């Protein structure tokens, strides 16, 4: 899989010609749709926010990303604009598509089912291509834990979280999720899950990624609202299908994002 945009476009065109096209979710899919939209944006060095938290989505980097996805979209299998989070898993499992972006869960569902084990054996993993970014622009998955401010026993809750992060508890837990998320504490990089299947071990350091939802501003509830309201996905799908020009789509996304950040970060 090439790391540059021209190479990816060329690859997808060839896959399309070969009758085994690529497919990335452009529908209202919270996980995979946002994953693809963020990657397309970040790999062009675009971002939703600047370091101070100002909305900078309407930028020339975004326009470049939109134009690139517009070229890429015709190489996809038909119907990706209506895909939700399971659609690419199903299309890949039935061998309708040969390239997609997904968590490692897809690989395990294929591998654990005797009927599809051959597909798993024939599959290869790679971190999302860099484009013009310095590192692979993908947000790492990890498990979040939090304690309510109004909890009557805050110290007990913290002690419990600390207990769960200890080796005896955390390492079996990490191993059991088979590489779907990775550890925030560096020492767990030595856990057994990262030493077995080489198709899984490449995800060992995904938490070291400098990218996250709402990159590169401060994390806030509005960041979550923007991804839950599919703002970036819809910006890309509108341009890909020709429903809007890149400039109009970026301006609309900017308007929607600014409202979320103005109202929710007050």
């Amino acid at each position, binding site marked *: 899989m090439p790391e540059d945009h021209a190479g990816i476009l060329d690859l997808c065109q060839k896959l399309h010609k070969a009758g085994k096209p690529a497919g990335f979710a*452009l*529908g*209202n899919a919270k996980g995979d749709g946002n994953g693809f939209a963020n990657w397309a944006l970040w790999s062009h060095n675009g971002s939703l926010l600047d370091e101070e938290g100002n909305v900078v989505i309407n930028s020339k980097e975004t326009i470049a990303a939109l134009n690139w996805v517009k070229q890429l979209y015709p190489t996809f*299998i*038909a*119907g*990706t*604009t*209506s*895909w*939700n989070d399971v*659609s690419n898993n*199903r*299309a890949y499992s*039935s061998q*309708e598509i040969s390239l997609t972006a997904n968590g490692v869960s897809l690989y395990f569902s294929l591998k654990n089912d005797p009927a599809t084990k051959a597909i798993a054996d024939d599959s290869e993993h790679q971190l999302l291509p860099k484009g013009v970014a310095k590192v692979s622009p993908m947000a790492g998955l990890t498990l979040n834990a939090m304690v309510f401010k109004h909890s009557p026993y805050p110290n007990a809750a913290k002690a419990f979280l600390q207990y769960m992060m200890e080796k005896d508890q955390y390492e079996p837990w990490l191993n059991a999720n088979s590489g779907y998320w990775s550890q925030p504490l560096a020492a767990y990089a030595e856990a057994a899950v990262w030493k077995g299947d080489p198709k899984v071990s490449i995800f060992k350091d995904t938490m070291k990624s400098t990218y996250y939802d709402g990159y590169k501003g401060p994390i806030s*509830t509005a960041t*979550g*609202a923007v991804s*839950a*309201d599919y703002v970036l996905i*819809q910006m890309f*799908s*509108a341009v890909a*299908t020709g*429903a809007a020009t890149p400039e109009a789509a970026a301006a*609309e996304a900017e308007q929607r994002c600014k*409202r*979320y950040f103005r*109202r*929710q970060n*007050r």
Partner: protein
Amino acid sequence: MSVTTFSSPALAQRQPNWLVRLFDYKPFLIAMCLAPAIGLLSVFLTYPLGLGIWLAFTDTTIGRRGIYVGLENFQYLLTDSLWWNAVFYSVVYTAIATFGKFALGFWLALLLNNHFPFKSVLRAIILLPWIVPTVLSALAFWWIYDPQFSIISYLLVDVLHWRDSNVDFLGSPWPARFSLIAANIWRGIPFVAISLLAGLQTISPSLYEAAMLDGASAWQRFRYITFPMMMPILAIVMTFSIIFTFTDFQLVYAITRGGPGNSTHLLATLAFQRGIAGGELGEGAAIAVSMIPFLVFATLFSYFGLARRKWQQGESND
């Protein structure tokens, strides 16, 4: 002597204790009997409705109390192309789906009004699409419309070889809109058909006999007897149907979630998307409140347009 021994228990009976007297007191009884209904209505109807309308005038988000912002939410919606898009589709969806449901439902009711074997069984089966939980039938339609695994595409492409590519049901705006309308019509036909069937059975056969003696054709009997006699029930069923369709949520949310893009959002799904997924409770409530004028208009239209015919007030009343 005997009088006094008899009178004391009788006296006690005629002067009951205070509890019995309280329950015989009419104003108290009225209040007691109304209290449960009023309590239920205010807790489950008035309070949520009032709260929803109040939220529409605040900037409440999930997890944070809002402050009163006046008409800010509504002013924003007027500049929001996605809201206008939802208004447009809600009207189109309601208009086409209601027309389809009534055309097919009326037809089905006329067919079911005939005598044929297994009549009651068939009438019960007809109700099935309406009885099945909507989310369940929505999931079935979601599979039927799937871009890769649609049964219709499979039949057309792999079995009949009529097409080379899968049918694009949900991938572009207009096909997606009409796919949802078709699903809604399918779901709504039984309600219309059974309600209109009930209306058909109240029409006296003697009217048809008289018309046949006068040599009226089948079309004339429908046009001048069946249709006018059905007007009151048509008006009521149509009012209900318009309200159900305009406020529809489950079909759209389960099948497309408003996609592709935002082209199939109804006002109800947009309100949920903004209010719950996006966390903007105030704005979501404002979108929901913005449905009220449309519903009031639709109700008045059905009521005045269809129900107030001269036959209801007598033939002489022009």
